[in-house]
Every structure is written in C-alpha cells, then in structure tokens.
C-alpha cells in the first residue's frame, strides 16, 4: 500500500506559468476567481484525497464489488467516503450556478480531478461519470428535465451513468438495438447495455442512467439513435425517489484492474419496460454524445496523468527506502543511488510532468473555446481543443502504461507482489488506452477528422506555435541544446504532416496504418514543447529570485531529461511513418 500526496507545486506551476490561470479567468468572465482561490481549493481537495480517498484505494482493489439480491454492493467504506465527498460539495465544481454548481473553470476542475483520480481511480470514476451525465442533460435536456434531475446530480446526492455500449455495439454504435417505445409522456425502454461503469451501487438514493436507444420509426444507423434519461427509482410527486424502475444490474464483470468500480451489465425492461424520458430531440442522441466527447476523452487522458503520478510516488518512496547497495565501509545505501534506477525515476517524473502540462493546457482550451467573445478567437480555440483532445487521450494514456510499468520495475520482485501497491497501479492503468475510444480510435480521429479534414491547417498552427518556443529556447544560452532537440522534433512533426497529406490520397490504408505513430510523434512533440516552455519559465523565475529554487532547478533538469530521453522518439516515429502501410497490409489474412 502506498500513500499519496498531491504534487501541488507542479500543478500550481502549470496553472500559473503554462496556462496563465489569472489571465484565463479575467479574459473569460470567471469573475472573482483567481489563482489564490484555486490554490486554496487544491490544498483542501488534496487533504480529502490523500487522507480519505487514497487509503481506500488498496481496499477497493482487494475487496472489489459484489452483486447481491439488492443490487451491487460497493467496497466497504466507499459509501462513507462518497458522502463526505458529496457533502464537501466536490461534485458541484464545474456545473452552472443555476443548478447549484460553483461554475469554476474546466482547467481548475481538471487540476482537482487529478487529485481524486490519483487517490482512488476506481472511486473517482463515479463522480466523473456523473459529471458527464450532468453535462448531457444540461446541454441538451428540456427545462423540465434539468430542473428535475440536475440539482441533485450536481450536489452528488444522486449519481449518473452513461449507457452506450451493447454486446454488438462497441466502437460501432450504429449497431445499437435497445428499443424505446413511446407511451404517453414517456418511453418504455427495453434492451441490454454492457460495460456500464458504476451502473449500480448503494452509495446514493438514486442513480440516473443516460441511455442510447432506438425509436420504432428511427432510421437505420447512427442517425436513428436517441438519448433517454432512465432513473433507477422513479420520482414521486415531490420529486423524491419512489417506485423502482424496470432496470437492474444483472452481472458485474471480473476485471484486470479498477476492481472497486462496478462494471455492470444493465438490463432494461425485463418486465413491462423501463420508463425513460427523451433528452432533446429524437434521433439526435449520438450527436449529443459527441458534444461531450472532448471533455470525456480529456478526462481519461487526465486519469493517465493521475495514475502515472501515483505510481511514481510509490516507486520513489521504495527507491529511497530499499537498501541494496553496499558502501566501502560496509554500510548500505538505497537503490535510488543506482544510475539505472534514477533513469527510470527520471523517465517517470519527466513524462508525468509533461503529461500534466499537456492535460491542463488542453483543459484550458475547453474554457477558452466555450467562453470566447470573438468569433475568430472561438474558432481558433475550438480547433486547438479538437486537435489536442486525441493527443491528450491517446498519447498520455499510452505513456501511462510505460510509467506504471517502470513503477513496478523500480520495485523489482516486490513490484510483482501485490502488497507494495505498485502492481495495482500497473493493472488499473491498463483500461485507460481502451475505454472512451481506444488508442487506435484516438489516432484515427487525429489523422482523419483533425488533420486530413482541415488539410492539416490546425496542425500547422500548432507547429507554428511550437516554433516560437524553439526560437525562444535557441536564443537562450543555457537552452541551446534543448532548442536544437525541439527543432529536430518539430521538423519531424512538419515532415510527418506533409507525408500524411500527400500519401493519404494515394494509399487508402496509409492514414490508418501510420496513425498511432503519428499520434505518438505529436504527443512527444507537445510534451517537449511544454517542457521547453517550463524550462524557460523556471529560468525566468530563478533569475528574478522568485519561487522555490529547489523545485525550479529540478524542473530545469527534468525538462533537459525529457529533451534527451523522450523527445528523440519523434524521429523513430517519423521513420516508421515514412515507410507507410506496405508491410502492415501485405500479408493475406491466412498468412497471419
């Protein structure tokens, strides 16, 4: 088992120096919100995370959840922790003040969410899913639906779920079969949904399911899917949970990780049909889901940052304690003195910091795109948000696999044994490249919708901005090498972009074949870009005699390490991209 402490210094550095938190708030109408308040919020959230949620993490892993006659029973202790979380108002962070939310910026919400996800990822999925359900109803539901459900979901009194997947409809949601039959002022829903995170539990009085289903007269395919609100308990005249709706969890999955997060098979309409209420207009369900996709996918990217941080803290503690070296005088020393252990720790540290930087910078684009006054500004931020989202989700969650792998490696044999807690982080991380669109889907999104569709324009703008950092680094005596390394990576990005634009038209398999390498290349490039900026900011602060010199000097070295050890991966990716699809597509299926 391992402790967790929120890395407030790094979170605050990113918010201040890379995001420009105060400017963001001032420019986007977040009156009264400033960095000082953000810092107070992070401090208090950090306490709750490390003292209440983090100790339950290993218990949840060991005990998991149980399906009983009464439904899913969560891990002992989770209900009390959830009550504390909800009573503390933490579920209301981002929601509009109209529904009793606090209306705080998405980037601050992201910084706070990192705490919950690091402390206890299985637990934190529940409020994360609720937040998604709240957004769906808030953006697309009728006034009546909003008034009925939102205040109690925002307060955390009720939780929410997202029901998309069916046995035959995973990535391909066009294949959804769940049916919705009009019946007076509501609909009767019948069908089975799988992989429903926190689909059932006893932590709250009610659970509000958002369900994708088809109307009887719906057109085939993606254009015939509608979105419904289906409460676990129907509301009585006073709006309180009353009669049980015809929906239940019929099975929970046994999984590699996140054991405490119940992954439910939900059965709708075993009897007369589950009562559901249409959200927005008929047949627009999938479009509604897409409007929430950026936030949902970035949310999973953030989980990658969070699990990497937790794994790093555990590995670091172990490396400082584990005595496996002997000095000349016979005394022993800890393994952190060994160069290769330090190489692993530096890799974990520098990657995690770069990932955090990208996750926060991406999250800030949600605020800027959502609140920009000027139309051109809005378009620019929306394009950047959409471009960064698959990189945040795809690159960060892929890299989090390597980080948690290294965490276990630092522990040696003890890492393979469950008691140290390292193995849990490694197992928990594994879902991240899969749900909310696999790595392959993120990469396709990046090369297709986000690059080819706009003829590479959004990427060109990003590359131009990275060039500014290259120039700034190169001008600075101390950062000449980092500047040169970033320039090479930038050139790799430019070449990859041109290659894609040119070859996608010639070879129909090209884009898909190179997509993951393409996404990883841009992930490392963005990481190098933000670590380069971090180094420049850290040096400026040091020169001005501001900030904690120990932290800032460590940031300089961490940025240098990233530039030397991780950034060169862009060149390998480029080389592979330029080979195209030939060896990928050549074999016949029988030859595999």
């Amino acid at each position, binding site marked *: 088992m391992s402790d967790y402490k929120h890395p407030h210094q790094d979170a605050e550095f990113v918010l201040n120096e890379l995001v420009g938190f105060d400017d963001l708030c001032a420019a986007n109408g977040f009156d009264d919100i400033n960095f000082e308040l953000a810092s*107070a919020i992070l401090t208090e959230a950090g306490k709750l995370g490390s003292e209440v949620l983090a100790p339950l993490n290993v218990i949840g892993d060991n005990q998991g959840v149980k399906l009983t006659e009464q439904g899913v029973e969560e891990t002992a202790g989770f209900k009390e922790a959830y009550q504390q979380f909800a009573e*503390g*108002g933490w579920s209301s962070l981002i929601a509009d003040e109209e529904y009793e939310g606090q209306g705080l910026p998405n980037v601050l919400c992201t910084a706070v969410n990192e705490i919950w996800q690091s402390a206890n990822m299985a637990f934190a999925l529940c409020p994360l899913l609720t937040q998604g359900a709240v957004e769906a109803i808030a953006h697309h539901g009728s006034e009546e639906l909003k008034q009925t459900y939102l205040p109690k979901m925002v307060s955390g009194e009720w939780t929410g779920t997202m029901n998309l997947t069916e046995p035959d409809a995973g990535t391909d949601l066009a294949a959804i079969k769940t049916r919705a039959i009009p019946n007076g002022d509501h609909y009767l829903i019948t069908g089975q949904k799988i992989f429903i995170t926190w689909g059932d539990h006893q932590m709250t009085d009610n659970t509000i399911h958002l369900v994708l289903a088809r109307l009887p007269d719906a057109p085939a395919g993606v254009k015939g899917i509608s979105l419904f609100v289906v409460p676990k308990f129907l509301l009585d005249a006073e709006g309180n949970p009353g009669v049980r709706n015809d929906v239940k969890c019929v099975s929970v999955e046994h999984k590699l990780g996140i054991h405490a997060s119940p992954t439910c098979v939900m059965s709708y309409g075993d009897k007369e049909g589950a009562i559901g209420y249409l959200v927005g207009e008929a047949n627009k369900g999938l479009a509604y889901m897409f409007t929430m996709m950026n936030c949902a996918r970035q949310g999973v990217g953030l989980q990658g940052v969070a699990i990497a941080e937790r794994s790093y803290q555990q590995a670091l503690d172990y490396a400082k304690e584990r005595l496996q070296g002997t000095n000349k005088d016979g005394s022993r020393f800890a393994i952190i003195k060994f160069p290769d252990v330090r190489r692993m720790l530096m890799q974990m540290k520098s990657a995690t910091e770069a990932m955090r930087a990208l996750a926060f910078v991406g999250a800030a684009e949600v605020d800027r795109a959502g609140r920009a006054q000027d139309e051109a500004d809005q378009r620019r931020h929306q394009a950047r948000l959409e471009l960064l989202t698959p990189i945040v989700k795809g690159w960060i969650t892929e890299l989090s696999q390597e980080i948690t792998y290294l965490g276990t490696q630092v522990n040696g044999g003890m890492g393979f044994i469950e008691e140290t807690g390292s193995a849990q982080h490694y197992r928990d991380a594994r879902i991240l490249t899969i749900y909310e669109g696999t790595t392959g889907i993120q990469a396709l999104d990046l090369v297709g919708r986000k690059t080819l569709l706009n003829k590479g324009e959004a990427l060109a703008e990003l590359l131009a901005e990275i060039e500014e950092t290259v120039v700034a680094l190169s001008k600075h005596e101390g950062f000449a090498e980092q500047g040169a390394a970033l320039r090479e990576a930038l050139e790799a990005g430019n070449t990859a972009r041109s290659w894609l634009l040119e070859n996608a038209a010639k070879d129909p398999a090209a884009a898909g074949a190179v997509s993951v390498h393409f996404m990883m290349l841009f992930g490392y490039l963005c990481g190098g870009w933000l670590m380069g900026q971090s180094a420049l900011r850290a040096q400026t602060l040091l020169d001005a005699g501001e900030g904690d010199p120990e932290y800032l000097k460590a940031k300089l070295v961490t940025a240098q390490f990233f530039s030397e050890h991780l950034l060169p991966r862009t060149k390998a990716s480029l080389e592979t991209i330029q080979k195209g699809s030939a060896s990928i597509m050549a074999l016949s299926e029988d030859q595999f």
Partner: protein
Amino acid sequence: MKVLVAVKRVIDYNVKVRVKPDNSDVDLANVKMALNPFCEIAVEEAVRLKESGAASEVVVVSIGPKACQEQIRTALALGADRGIQIETEELPESLSVAKLLAKVVEAEQPGLVILGKQSIDADNNQTGQMLGALLNRPQGTFASEVKIDGDSVNVTREVDGGLQTLNLKLPAIVTTDLRLNEPRYAKLPDIMKAKRKPLDVKTPADLGVDLKNHTRLLKVSAPAERQAGIRVASVDELIDKLKNEAKVL
C-alpha cells in the same frame, strides 16, 4: 456568546524543515505554509460551539504579514464568521502576541477565547497562559473536552496522571490539545464563501501595542544525522560500550 480564536501561519507539517545556510533561522522562503494544527482544532471547536447553539459568532484573529490572510481564509472556510489580521512583518514573541490578543479581546469582548496549546514551529506553549494572566481571566489549558454550562465552561484537561476537569467562569481562555476534536475538511462552497467574509486589517500601532522582543534567536541548527548502528558480539561488549564509550551507565 462570541468566541475568539487565535490562529498562526506555520510551516506545513508535511514539509521537511530546512535550516538556513548561515544557521540564523529556519528557511521559510517559498516553503508551503499552513494553519497550525492545534489552531485548526481550536477553529473546529469554536465552529462546533456555534453549530450547537452555544456560540453566536466565531471571530478568528492572526498576527503576521499579509500572507497570513490565507490561514484566516482557511479558518473562514471551516466556518468562522469573520477575520482580523494584525499586520506585522516581524515575528513577535509569545508575550507580544498575548499583548496584541489582549487588546483584541478588550475590543471584541468574547465570552471564550480558544487558542492552540502551542504552534508546531516554536513549540513555546505559553501564549494562552500569558493571555489569561494579562486579562486576569481563568484558563483551561490542554483541553480534550470543552462543554459550555450556563455562564461557565467545563474543560477536561489532559494531565500527567489522567484527566482533570475544571469549571471556569466565563469569560475564559481555553487552549486545545490534540484529542479535543478531529477538524473537518473544508467544503468547496465554503471555500468560495470564505472569500467574501469580512476581514479587518489592523496594525500593532492601532492597538497601542509596541512590539518588543525580550529574547533573541542566536542560532538554529539541524539535528545531527543519525549514525549507522553496529552489531555487538556479546552483552558484555554492549555493557562495556555503554559504560566507556556512551558513558550512560
């Protein structure tokens, strides 16, 4: 009844303390600071008194540079109603703190003053007692239970032999021990509201107190690093070493 709580900004208990290279003091530059844990317990107790109806208002006071407003805001987020900062760049010693607090007590006329029994930085454990003496009010130190009983307060104290319960006539001074309560976590809406709660800034001059130091800090040094242990071959060798090397027998 009004309750006044004194709080201090101290180095966060999670932070590893560094001594300045010239041994002149502890290095506090850019170090994470927090509300002194004993003061947090004092705030919690005051807020509980208010929630139970025994108190009507909780006023929190801190002495220090502008940054100590952060700790006042923390206390306001935990449920205090308003704050007072006595602004000074100096680090006043306990007697000066007690004198400043005495002036605040004269102005505010609280029924009860709650302080932490000590701050985790200086560990003096004397401000509450000095305040009691200056105000000529009864004091209950190291409280592990505080119960208001009409115009008096019962304070259960942790003493060497066990527990001692005193009945103090109000107005009184109480200092908190670790086991008095378990402070709550601040709620997000309360952190937001704390920004808008009133916070008055005064100076020692406003209160007519001249800060004088009667003690001088000569030197701060880090504890000596622990030496590695050795294994002795026999009990005799151990006794010999304790006698002749360690000279403790």
